[in-house]
């Protein structure tokens, strides 16, 4: 066990939350921040394009989709294509952060 003052934990949490919030807002409003790509060029967008192609009965494997994964991923993404691009990306990001956090937690406990 390591003893820490609660105020330090809270401070670090607030700083991290503030950082993510500011970066997210910057990205959504101005389209740039620490992030190099805007949404239409990111990998998530290629997954969505591939999903849309599969929904329409087309192949996702052509140059414009830039999709280089198995069809399973594009099929899993299909529910998110029903949402707007930003909303889908938000959900995808929340799931990604939760998955990574869970991974760090499990690795720390093992």
């Amino acid at each position, binding site marked *: 066990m390591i*003893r820490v003052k609660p105020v330090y934990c809270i401070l670090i949490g607030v700083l991290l939350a503030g950082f993510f919030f500011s970066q997210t807002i910057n990205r959504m409003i101005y389209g740039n921040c620490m*992030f190099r790509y805007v949404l239409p060029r990111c990998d998530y967008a290629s997954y969505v394009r591939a999903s849309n192609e599969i929904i329409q009965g087309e*192949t*996702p494997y052509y140059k414009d989709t830039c999709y280089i994964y*198995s069809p399973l991923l594009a099929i899993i993404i299909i529910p998110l294509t029903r949402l707007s691009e930003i909303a889908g990306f938000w959900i995808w990001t929340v799931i990604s952060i939760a998955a990574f956090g869970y991974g760090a937690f499990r690795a720390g406990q093992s």
Partner: protein
Amino acid sequence: MDSNQHSGVRLWSVPRRTIIAIVLAVFWLPFYEAIVHGQITPIITGILALAIGRGPFIRGFLVGLTAALKSPFAIMIPFVSISFGWRALLGCIVGASFALIHPSLFLEYLNLLANLAERPYGDIGLARWLGLDVCLPLTVVICLIVSIRWRGTENSFMAIIACVVIGTALWFHSYTPLILPVIYFANKTADRFWPVDSKR
């Protein structure tokens, strides 16, 4: 996390393992790049984490599922099978079979993979610098050694993840799943050289 009074100041007692995991995870830069790009690697990390400490079949199933989502992780299948036995192999086959959910598209995907191998891809990583011809055999040999040396243990699973990620990563965000072995071995090292929590 439990709290107590120390010298009149209220303190929280946090397990050292938790602190190591949080610090490494917060400063794991590939994760931020993965989030920025909306990459699938954080989810792959979560799926592989689910496999930690599970029985051979479930572990194999989750590794197979990972391979079905992202092909480089298929390299893990033979070595997880060597380490954890035939039940793990069965699980891998069942998990990987999800890639066949749309057979005709899967065949197109295989064609795409064959073409991709001919193109110089990626911006960082051993596979980029050494070339896949050198890096893949090296990864296979090291995976084989660790899967036999640490057969059936968590060490082998983590070492296989580390070898496959380092050996196949072509982009910075590809290193996201490496956080699992990094945290695991950091904790093992800390326990060895700084056995504070050993009485827990």
